[in-house]
C-alpha cells in the first residue's frame, strides 16, 4: 500500500504544473496566431507597396497633419486596388454605412452571419445525426454497408451547386431547403469519422463483452460509441466548416436574402466599385467558421475532459 499512496502523492504533486501548462500554451498560441496575422498583412501590403496602385494619405490624426504619397516602382495586376484592396480599406468597410444613412456594414454583415449560422447549425444537427446514424447502421450491418456506401460516396462527388437547385425545387425556396443543403454537406464527414471511431476499439474488448454475454445494444452503448467520441469530434469539426459552405450555397440557390449568401452575390455585383465590401464579407464568413469550429472544440473539451486520455493539439 505504501507504493499506492506514494503514487497518489506523486500525481497530486504534478497537478498544479499540469494546470498551468495549458494556460501557458494557450497564450503562446494566441501570440503565434497574431504573428502570422501581422506577417500576412505585411506580405499583402508589401506586395501593394512594390507593385500596386499609387496611394496617398491626407488626413488629420490627433491634430497632426499627415500627408504622404507613394508611387510603387512596379506594376502587378494581382496587387492593384481591385484585386487586393488595402487592408485599411477593408477595415474601414466594416465601419462605413452599408447604405447611405444606414447602419455600418459590419453590423449588417454580423446580422446576416447570425442568420446563416442558424441555418448552418440546424443543417449540422440534422446532418450530424444522419451521419452518426449511418455509421451505427453500417457497423451493425455488413449488408447495409455494402449496399449503401457507394451511394454515400457518390452523393459527395456530385457538385453541391448541381444538387442545391434540385433540393430547393423539391422542398421549398426558403430556409428549410437551405438547411437541407447544409445537412447534405455535413453528414458525409460525420459518417466517415463515426465509422472509423465505432470500429476503433481493441478487438479484445469485444471478446470481453462476449464473455459477459453482452448484447449488441450494450456493445454499442458501452464500447463502440464511447470509443468513437474523439473520432466523432474530428468529423464534427470538418462538418461544422462544411455546413457553413452548404448554408451559403443554399441561400444563394434558394434566394434567401437575409444571410451571407445574398451579401456575397450583392457585393460580387458591385465588386468593381467597392471590392473591399466583398473582402469584408469574406472575413465575416471566416469568422463564422472560426466561431463554429471553436464551439465544437469547447464542446469536446467539456465533454471529454478527465474522461479521455488527453490529446495534444488544437484540432
Amino acid at each position: 500500500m505504501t507504493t499506492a499512496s506514494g503514487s497518489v502523492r506523486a500525481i497530486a504533486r504534478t497537478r498544479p504544473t499540469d494546470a498551468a501548462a495549458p494556460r501557458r500554451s494557450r497564450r503562446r498560441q494566441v501570440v503565434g496566431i497574431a504573428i502570422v496575422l501581422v506577417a500576412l498583412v505585411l506580405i499583402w501590403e508589401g506586395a501593394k507597396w512594390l507593385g500596386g496602385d499609387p496611394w496617398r494619405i491626407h488626413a488629420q490624426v490627433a491634430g497632426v497633419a499627415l500627408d504622404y504619397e507613394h508611387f510603387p516602382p512596379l506594376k502587378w495586376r494581382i496587387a492593384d486596388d481591385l484585386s487586393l484592396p488595402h487592408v485599411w480599406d477593408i477595415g474601414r468597410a466594416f465601419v462605413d454605412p452599408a447604405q447611405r444613412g444606414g447602419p455600418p456594414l459590419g453590423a449588417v454583415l454580423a446580422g446576416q452571419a447570425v442568420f446563416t449560422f442558424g441555418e448552418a447549425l440546424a443543417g449540422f444537427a440534422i446532418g450530424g445525426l444522419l451521419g452518426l446514424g449511418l455509421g451505427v447502421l453500417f457497423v451493425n450491418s455488413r449488408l447495409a454497408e455494402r449496399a449503401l456506401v457507394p451511394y454515400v460516396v457518390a452523393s459527395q462527388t456530385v457538385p453541391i451547386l448541381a444538387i442545391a437547385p434540385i433540393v430547393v425545387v423539391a422542398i421549398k425556396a426558403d430556409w428549410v431547403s437551405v438547411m437541407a443543403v447544409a445537412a447534405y454537406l455535413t453528414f458525409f464527414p460525420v459518417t466517415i469519422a463515426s465509422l472509423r471511431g465505432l470500429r476503433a476499439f481493441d478487438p479484445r474488448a469485444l471478446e470481453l463483452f462476449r464473455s459477459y454475454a453482452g448484447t449488441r445494444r450494450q456493445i454499442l452503448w458501452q464500447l463502440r460509441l464511447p470509443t468513437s467520441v474523439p473520432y466523432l469530434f474530428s468529423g464534427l469539426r470538418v462538418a461544422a466548416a462544411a455546413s457553413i459552405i452548404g448554408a451559403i450555397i443554399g441561400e444563394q440557390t434558394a434566394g434567401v436574402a437575409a444571410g451571407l449568401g445574398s451579401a456575397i452575390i450583392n457585393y460580387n455585383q458591385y465588386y468593381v466599385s467597392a471590392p473591399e465590401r466583398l473582402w469584408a464579407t469574406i472575413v465575416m464568413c471566416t469568422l463564422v467558421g472560426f466561431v463554429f469550429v471553436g464551439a465544437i472544440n469547447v464542446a469536446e473539451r467539456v465533454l471529454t475532459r478527465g474522461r479521455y486520455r488527453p490529446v495534444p493539439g488544437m484540432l
Partner: protein
Amino acid sequence: MAESGAGAPVVEAAGVGKVFGTGDGSVTALDGIDLAIRAGEFVSLIGPSGCGKSTLLRLIGDLTSPTGGTLTVNGKTPSRARLDRDYGMVFQAPVLMDWRTIAKNIELPLEIMGYPAEDRRRRSADLLRLVELEAFADRHPWELSGGMQQRVAIARALSFDPKLLLMDEPFGALDEMTRERMNTELMNIWRRTATTIVFVTHSIPEAVFLSTRVVVMSARPGRISQVIDIDLPADRSVETRESPRYFALVTQVREALRQHESGEESSGLDGAARIRAEGLA
C-alpha cells in the same frame, strides 16, 4: 493423467482439435487434447509459441470453437457456459475502458449483467481492496502504471464471481520485478476466492510458482506432451521461490519443454520446406 484435488470437474476435453482454414492452407493448431480440470485447481498451460496454448484457452472460453473432439465446461457446452457467465477473462493487455474510472471499469461486467447499483458499488469497493487500489477508485486507466492496470483487469474479471478464470499471459507485458509481485498477489487472490484458474504463460518460474498442475505443450501440431503435478505447499511465498523443491520442479518443466524442442526442430524444417514448396506452387 494425474489429477489433483477432489473438486468437481470444470473443464473436460476429450480428443479436442482445432484446424484453422480449410484444404491446402489449413493449419492444425491443436490435435488430440485430453484434459480434465477440477474445481479449485490452478492449471498453467506452457509451451513454445505456436503450440496452441492460447487457442486451447480460447476454446475453453468459447472465443473460438473446436473442429474436433468434445469439450465441456461445468458439464455444459462452452457456449452455454459463456452465456451463463461462467468465465472471467484476463488478457495480456489490461483492455480497460479509458472513459470509465477504475471503480466503473470493475463494475462494467456487473452493469452488463444487470446487477443493482448498490451491489455493484459494494463489489467494486471489495475488489479494489483486494487488489489494493482503493486510492485509485476515481482515477482513469491512463493514470495508472501497467501493473496497476493489470490488477484492475483481474478485479474486473473477478467482479461477478465467475466459476472459471481464464488468463492469457496476464503478466507477459510486465517487468520481472512487477511480475513476481503480481504472482504473489494472484496466489493470494486465488486462495481467498477459491476460483478455478486456467493460466497461459511462457514463463517456467511463473507456471511452477502459481500452479497446482503445469500442462506442457508442444507445437505443430499443438499437443499436450506432459502434465506435471506441482506438489509445493499450498501456502506459497517469496521463500517458496528459493526452496530446493521449487528448483527441482522448474528443472523438470524446463526439461519437459526441451525434450520436445528437439522434436520441434525437425517439424520446423518441415514447415520451412512446406513454405518453399508453397512458394514454388
